[in-house]
């Protein structure tokens, strides 16, 4: 997967002829591949590649259009992925130079009026294959966004939240992690699966700086964790660990969340506000006075994630978060994570041996086996 596997062709004059009002920008400027108009007024243009123009337009608009009838979109190539994104934006009039047959049912289903210079059977793009049977625009958006973030992280170091470069970890006589290269984009959701003992927890501990790499380097937001990895990583990473850590300590749910702001340079009032906001965002405000050890597994996870939100963590590391939860609680937890990742643009790295519990659309899925990472699952 890469941006290059679906590069939009520059629009030629002849190809754009049928729609004068959608005419691309004149040379020598980069050709406009996407343009949103309201009547004669051009609201937005983009010259990017792959599905990035549509993703950029999504950011530009913020919310779906409230008055779709007035708007018209020009896009050089529309496949199923683009069609789903366009529908999600609320756009109902589209002109394109090249239309994939896979996108037509999407437009038909959502009553999108479209015209095209030519229709092709398919577009050679991995994303199109992944979304071949997808009908839900929201789910499609999540998949596309995840792929875009992963691609950006690979090609643009500035878009990386985290990068492991040639990381190996030796514990005792065994090589637990072997030459791991892992760029993770900002806001990306990464699912790492592997059998028990595969090194998943060691990988997270290495990212946090608790376990120093025997070889290679870990970089967080362009800063190598260097000689003081723990200090460098501190505060940016929210850690949801595997074990039921409370033991016999009588600690209230609110006190657990307050741990998240312990190191924050903020006023008392602001800290209290962050704690309150974190608990409300995860739906556990009512649990504040309850003793942590008496909470159910699902409630504990919510409190723990609230702690990470109060901490304003940019990266969330979750070690087997669904362990010891029942089916309903597992589903609720995954839904909560996806909502938070979307809402706060938090980078989420989740390791588990229960990959089947997670709807992998929107997640980049890697497998850790014998100390090495490899692509796995449908999302790849």
């Amino acid at each position, binding site marked *: 997967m890469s941006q290059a596997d679906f590069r939009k062709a520059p629009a030629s004059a002849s190809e754009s002829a049928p729609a004068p009002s959608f005419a691309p920008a004149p040379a020598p400027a980069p050709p406009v591949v996407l343009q949103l108009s309201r009547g004669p007024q051009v609201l937005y243009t983009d010259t990017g590649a792959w599905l990035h123009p549509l993703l950029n337009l999504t950011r530009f608009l913020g919310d779906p259009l409230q008055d779709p009838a007035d708007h018209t979109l020009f896009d050089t190539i529309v496949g199923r992925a683009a069609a789903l994104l366009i529908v999600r934006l609320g756009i109902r009039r589209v002109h394109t130079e090249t239309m994939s047959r896979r996108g037509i049912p999407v437009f038909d289903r959502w009553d999108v009026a479209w015209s095209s210079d030519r229709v092709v059977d398919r577009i050679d793009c991995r994303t199109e294959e992944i979304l071949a049977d997808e009908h839900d625009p929201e789910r499609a958006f999540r998949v596309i966004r995840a792929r875009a973030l992963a691609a950006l992280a690979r090609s643009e170091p500035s878009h990386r939240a985290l990068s492991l470069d040639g990381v190996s970890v030796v514990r005792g006589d065994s090589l637990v992690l072997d030459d791991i290269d892992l760029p993770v984009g900002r806001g990306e959701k990464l699912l790492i699966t592997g059998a028990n003992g595969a090194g998943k927890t060691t990988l997270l*501990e290495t990212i*946090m700086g*608790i*376990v*120093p790499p025997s070889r290679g380097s870990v970089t967080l937001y362009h800063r190598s964790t260097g000689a003081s990895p*723990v*200090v460098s*990583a*501190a*505060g940016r*990473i*929210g*850690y949801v*660990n595997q074990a039921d*850590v*409370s033991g*016999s*300590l*009588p*600690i*209230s749910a*609110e*006190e*657990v969340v*307050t*741990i*998240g*702001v*312990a*190191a*924050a340079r903020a006023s008392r009032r602001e800290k209290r506000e962050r704690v309150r906001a974190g608990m409300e965002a995860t739906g556990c405000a009512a649990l504040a*006075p309850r*003793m942590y050890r008496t909470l159910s597994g699902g409630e504990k996870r919510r409190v723990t994630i609230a*702690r990470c939100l109060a*901490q304003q963590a940019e990266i969330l*590391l979750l070690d087997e978060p669904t362990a010891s939860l029942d089916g309903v609680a597992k589903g609720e937890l995954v839904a909560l994570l996806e909502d938070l990742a979307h809402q706060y643009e938090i980078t989420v790295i989740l390791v588990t041996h229960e990959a089947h519990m997670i709807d992998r659309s929107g997640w980049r899925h890697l497998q850790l086996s014998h100390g090495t990472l490899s692509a796995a699952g449908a999302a790849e």
Partner: protein
Amino acid sequence: MIESLGLFEAFRVLEYLPIRRGFIVLMVAGAVFPLVGVLVLRLNLITLRFTLMHAALLGSAIALAAGLNPLVAGIVANTVVVAAISRARSHATGDAGAITTFFMVVTVGLAFAVIYRFRVPATDALQILWGNIYAMTPVDAWLTVGFAIVVVAFVVMNFTAVSAVLFDRSVARSAGIREGIIYTTIILLVGLTVSFVMRLIGALLLDAILILPALMALSLAHSVRTTFLWAALFGMAVVFFGFALAILSDLPVSSGVTIFGAVLFLCVHAVTRHRLYRSTQRSLT
């Protein structure tokens, strides 16, 4: 009524200055050192606590052999042991538990070797294990109170960080808390409490004040804040009524406090068991 009169009579001994001074220090110790007890129990530092006792004994023995101040030598010995353990645990290869146990055995062995080899009177060396609150000088009393203030200030000023370390050290670390510094400070506080306060009020009394109130607080409280508050309240109650028991029964204060502390612990244990039973019954119905 008669019992009240007895209690009143018991406290008439406070007319004597050394006893009054000792009682005040005892109340301060009862209010503050259970906080250290909470840290000892939650961080599983019981082995460390014995190690530090043995190290203090070694320091005392060396000091007596060399004609130095046993209290200072005990503190130095404990500081060295704390530094060694902290250094070991900061290296991934170090097993802090094993190293603590190693020091626990080695220090007491060396202490008795020094006592035997340099013909140090064992009773003098062991003095460090049983202080006498009535024999406190004003300086001793002020030092104890000063150290108690340091303990309270540390817990209050670093309350959330201390809570985080008690909760889970890896979580504390990920939250940006310098848990290594907090943990080492806690070990240092435990070390100083053992070596310094033990010399003043005695090992037995220290244990009764340090551990029993903390145990009771941990079984009753619902938050870290209330754990510390309960520990302080139980500590003061144990000291107050234990002192009265000692006077009324003509027992050493350490025995009176320990016996009363043990009885109170059993009562609290019964209450928590009963509460748990009722809670279970409610859940079943």
